[in-house]
């Protein structure tokens, strides 16, 4: 097959004869994207979500569903790209899954790991992933009438997509701002934009986790 045959296979042949299949999967060079370009794109995504939204909760749900398909795809993409063949198995336990999200996924999306990962004290099915300064919120100032909105709901959707894609059904992943609550303690909050992602797994996921723990994993 030569590149001079137009429309032969439907595969595009660039001038250097290297198709998408010839390229290395683990491209790290030039993989960074412009933050400003993302900011403008995100503005339009929020505007789109805002168009038919009834209230803040509805808007967050729409942002969440914009992120969900990205998460489902990123799970496979990142596992395929991982250099260690043993690491390209989908996580089967909750902790490796959360580690994958906090480390691999976060590094891929934002160039740094998440800031903290905790299990909720009063609800064992709930995990909390902390981000001191969500990149998506860098330039966003909320108007007063929407002060309880957190646009990181988009990232929450990505996380939900990863969990679902790996077979860990969730009741939903939500983003909440916690920077303001901490303000009372030391006067001025160190991370005013601090966000927590609440990941609540379904009951059957926890039951399976328990069985796996008993069986020695």
């Amino acid at each position: 097959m030569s590149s001079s045959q137009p429309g032969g296979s439907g595969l595009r042949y660039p001038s250097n004869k290297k198709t998408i299949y010839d390229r290395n999967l683990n491209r790290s060079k030039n993989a960074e994207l412009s933050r400003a370009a993302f900011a403008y794109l995100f503005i339009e995504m929020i505007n789109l979500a805002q168009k038919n939204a009834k209230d803040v909760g509805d808007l967050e749900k729409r942002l969440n569903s914009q992120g969900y398909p990205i998460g489902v795809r990123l799970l496979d993409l990142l596992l395929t790209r991982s250099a260690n063949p043993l690491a390209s198995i989908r996580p089967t336990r909750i902790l490796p899954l959360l580690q994958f999200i906090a480390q691999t996924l976060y590094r891929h999306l934002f160039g740094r790991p998440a800031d903290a990962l905790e299990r909720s004290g009063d609800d064992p099915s709930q995990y909390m992933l902390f981000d001191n300064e969500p990149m998506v919120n860098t330039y966003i100032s909320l108007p007063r009438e929407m002060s309880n909105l957190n646009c990181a709901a988009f990232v929450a959707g990505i996380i939900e997509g990863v969990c679902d894609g790996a077979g860990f059904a969730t009741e939903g992943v939500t983003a909440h701002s916690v920077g303001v609550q901490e303000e009372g303690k030391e006067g001025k909050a160190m991370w005013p934009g601090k966000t927590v992602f609440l990941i609540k797994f379904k009951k059957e996921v926890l039951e399976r986790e328990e069985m796996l723990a008993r069986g020695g994993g």
Partner: protein
Amino acid sequence: MQKLNSNDLLMLAGSFHGMHAITKQLCPNPPVPPAFSAPAANLAPSPFTHRPTGIEVLETSQFRMQCFQTITGIKFLLFTEPQQPNIDTTMKKIYELYADFVMKNPFYTVEMPIRCEKFDRALDGFIKLRG
């Protein structure tokens, strides 16, 4: 110095805008763009390069007012002491903050008063660092 409320600011900006428009008209003979001499001659003539700028600095013994206009026509007014150095870099930085925290904010409506918490905070931090 007395703090100005938003009404005062609007009045100030309004009168300055009128003054600025008049001074723009005062330019008696707009320079003719050089024809086919520069290497950029094959580019379309920019409407901005040869436009009279209007008033840029207002200086008194008590204060100095610097006006910076972006190519989209937004005017920034900066009031300083007459001896204040590096006004240009300060202005550039403020413009940068504006581009970041106002123009990239999905909840800002163009041509409305700027009420963006992050812009205020960044501006505050920048000015305090300078002062």
